[in-house]
């Protein structure tokens, strides 16, 4: 029988708030020495109490709206009870039955097929501390404890590893667009849990048992674990077995999943309303105010670049991948309008030369020295015939290195194209006079030597001669010999 995987993802995204979820400690702990970002509240000290970080709530509502979610008028926090040494209070403040948002979706583009993936809810909770195990000691770093964590729960609507991958990338893209999460997986800013079951292809019912894989700390781990788990379950089903409901972990080193808890051992988290926090009333006016902060989202941008600016799907895709790049491009296009520079030409330069140099020299868009308006300036020089396209590439490299204007570089280096007929004719006449052998060859019928003469002219002008004009003048001169 052929099986179809059914995959649901829970994505945990650390929010880029200044302070932690329930205390005033700085949430920006990356690189800080262990146990330096802490206070009685995020340490779970006796008598310490939580206070809600309003910015984190707003980030969650903003994100939920970007995912087309409903925002209920009431939300509350709940305690999720379990013991683990990285959980300072013995419970995690999370949201159970009244989350900040529900019922949204995002679109993914799987090789040209657009698919809608449902988002069940986006809610807010707090991160745990971090455990380190060395030899026979376990150590706790509390810096991460209490960092705001947004949990994005999908519907089980992905049916291939590729769909799960595309969904995750899309989430990451939107989170970065919103500026609510760095998406930096190496630093654990985005973490995954996957629910996986199989069903006979063509059927629509969900399997009664599913396997949950926890602690997938990167996209790569999620992809590998999902692949592994689909293969594992396929093998079991093909052998006539049944898949047990269980919670699994992912062993990166051995590239395999392993059982953490069977169904019988499943945790009872004993959720109940957090009595230390009042219920959240989410007024419609507040939601509207937050919504007004939504930037143009990648899908809308992509669409606009293709429809209004005539970009190719490839260019629109790479330019909108990151918000900073897309905004850089938008600013360049705006500047180009006044100079009559086409958006498509700008896109070629951005996705071509700019990306190449950024990658080659490992420069982020924010650190690029070329201002967006300098790109149409350069293109305008090409359009005016002042420099050739090839020279323009050299100028662009110079601009990338120094941030200087194209015009300044062209002038300083004397790169302006030679379009002066008289000057070029003089050069050509000198070359003809200096090379009688080639002239003789040409006359004998080797007309291909015309290109050799063109090459000599370009060489003599260090490539600055207007190539079209040189071609024309060389042809004229040779014919008139």
């Amino acid at each position, binding site marked *: 029988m052929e099986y179809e995987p059914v995959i649901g993802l829970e994505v945990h995204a650390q929010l880029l708030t200044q302070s932690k979820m329930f205390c005033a400690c700085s949430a920006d702990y990356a690189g800080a020495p262990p146990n330096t970002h802490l206070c*009685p509240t995020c*340490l*779970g*000290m*006796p*008598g*310490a*109490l*939580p*206070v*809600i970080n309003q910015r984190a709530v707003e980030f969650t509502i903003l994100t939920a709206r970007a995912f087309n979610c409903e925002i209920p008028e009431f939300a509350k926090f709940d*305690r999720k*009870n379990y*013991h*683990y*040494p990285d959980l*300072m*209070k*013995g*419970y995690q403040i999370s949201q159970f039955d009244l989350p900040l948002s529900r019922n949204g979706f995002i679109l993914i583009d799987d090789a040209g097929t657009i698919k809608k993936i449902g988002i069940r809810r986006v809610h807010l909770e707090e991160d745990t501390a971090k*455990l380190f*195990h060395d*030899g*026979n*000691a*376990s150590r*706790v770093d509390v810096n991460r404890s209490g960092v705001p964590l947004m949990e994005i729960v999908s519907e089980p609507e992905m049916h291939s590893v590729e769909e799960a991958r595309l969904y995750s990338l899309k989430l990451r893209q939107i989170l970065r667009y919103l500026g609510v999460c760095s998406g930096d997986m190496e630093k654990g800013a985005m973490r995954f849990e996957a629910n996986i079951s199989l069903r006979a292809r063509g059927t629509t019912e969900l399997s009664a048992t599913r396997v949950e894989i926890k602690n997938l700390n990167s996209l790569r781990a999620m992809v590998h674990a999902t692949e592994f788990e689909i293969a594992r379950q396929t093998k079991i089903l093909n052998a006539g077995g049944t898949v047990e409901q269980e919670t699994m*972990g992912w*062993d990166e080193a051995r590239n395999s999943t*392993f*059982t*953490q*808890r069977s169904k019988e*051992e499943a945790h*009872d988290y*004993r*959720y*109940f309303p957090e*009595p*230390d*926090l*009042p219920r959240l009333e989410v007024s419609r006016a507040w939601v509207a105010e937050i919504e007004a902060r939504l930037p143009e989202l990648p899908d809308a941008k992509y669409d606009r670049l293709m429809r209004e600016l005539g970009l190719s799907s490839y260019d629109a895709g790479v330019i909108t991948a990151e918000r900073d790049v897309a905004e850089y491009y938008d600013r360049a296009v705006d500047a180009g309008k006044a100079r009559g520079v086409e958006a498509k030409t700008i896109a070629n330069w951005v996705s071509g030369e700019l990306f190449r140099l950024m990658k080659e020299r490992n420069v982020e868009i924010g650190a690029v020295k070329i201002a967006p308006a300098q790109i149409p300036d350069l293109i305008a020089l090409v359009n005016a015939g002042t420099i050739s396209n090839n020279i323009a590439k050299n100028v662009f490299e110079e601009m990338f290195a120094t941030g200087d204007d194209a015009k300044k570089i062209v002038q300083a280096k004397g790169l302006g194209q030679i379009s002066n007929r008289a000057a070029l004719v003089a050069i050509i006449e000198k070359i003809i006079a200096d090379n009688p052998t080639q002239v003789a060859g040409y006359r004998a019928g080797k007309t291909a030597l015309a290109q050799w003469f063109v090459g000599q002219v370009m060489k003599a002008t260090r490539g600055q001669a207007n190539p079209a004009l040189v071609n024309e003048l060389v042809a004229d001169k040779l014919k008139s010999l």
Partner: protein
Amino acid sequence: MELYQLTVHAARELLQTGGITSLDLTRAILERIEKIDPRVHAYLTVIAERALDSARDADARWTEHRRDGSRAPALLGIPMAIKDEICTRGVRTTAGSKILHNFVPPYDATVMEKLNSAGAILIGKTNQDEFAMGSSTENSRYFTTRNPWDLERVPGGSSGGSAAAVAADETLFALGTDTGGSVRQPAGLTNTVGLRPTYGRVSRFGVIAFASSLDQVGPITKDVRDAAIILGAIAGHDPREATSVNVPVPDYVAAMRVGAMHASPLQNIRVGVPREYFIEGMQPGVARAVRDAIHVLESLGATTQEVSLPHTDYALPTYYLIAPAEASANLARYDGVKYGYRAPFDSAQGDTLRDSAQGDTLRDSAQGSNEMWDVMRATRGDGFGAEVKRRIMLGTYALSAGYYDAYYLKAQKVRTLIKQDFDRAFEQVDVIVGPTSPSTAFKIGEKVDDPLQMYLADVFTLAQALAGIPAISIPCGFADNATLSGVEGLPVGLQIMGRAFDEPRVLQVAYAYEHATDWHTRKPQL
């Protein structure tokens, strides 16, 4: 009169005129403790040296204030005792538990910050039932506090140490915490004044949590005026506490004195008497004292009428689902990892309660991880006493999958009904009065093996906590006690309840009654 017998307001007047010094007062209290506390056992910790230093500072500041005529902070130089449930920076805070036997908070509770800035002098930390779970201090992991009126009897609880310290003149005032009566019941049993403020009136930050939706800090004092003064000092919104309410703090002393100069000070006050608060099995002397007190209120101009709080019977089961449920989570943080008691690994190895599921979780993470779980388990097994463990189990059960709806959720619904009982009654009356406790102080050991009997000691103080309304217990007489000879009896408390944030009215009625009687001036023979 001895210095240690002073009330807060009397001491204030003497400090203001320079008639006494804070150092004299503090010394008198410390000497009193030295003499009496070996019999009363009110204090877990006394910080004599630090208190004397603070008293010297206070005297210096008083000298300044007297010189330039500026107003000194309300409690400058006044000694106080603080229940060990409340975090005090640099001073060991155990919550009466072994699991925090060595815990020295690096921060002050908000109420401590307020009292410190009001100039009060911390004398020490008082004994209590472990994590405020109990009605007698017998659940303290250290020792049982004695009732100064009869050392064979309990002082009530859980703030029994604070109440005994006030009753025995071992402090001028004390703070307690009241989750289901833990301020009022011991006040009633020791002839002191105990006030439970409206939920949200006083910050809980730094108060070790028992049941978060019920816990409130309240003063235990020698008279009503002191209760008003201390409430004024500790009340107010706290940005560090999300359930603290941002309503202005009135002048409680002024509010208390409304009508005091009038011939019928309680004219226009409607007093409700709930029929459900005079139940069978109540000690007859208690009922009699409370009835007499109601007559006094009438003689002061109040009109009285019977009211009904029909869900009173459900307060006890409701409380014993909600409070343990919250406690089961609040006490989860005590695992020996971060602070407090940690069981030695040797004793942990003997632990037979292995949980394979949890062991498995850590199989791949750390060597010796089973050791970690064993130590955590042994820490909690050893660090918590029987009553605390009982309530953690009760609460865990009430929140468990399959039982949540029937227990926790049902209890929350009944809690709403109990609140509505009070809402309806307060449409007809301004305050409600009744007994604080169904009996006078019981003998040490009498109820310790019967949790249900112990729970019944709080039967009249649970509903107010569930409803979040303020209530005060004030001395209203003594009840005959057959087991005692040569003593007139044991103290009885009158409970006066008010609408949320209507502490002014509660204090007004309490003060008028106190002014008309002299029960509060009676002192135990020690």
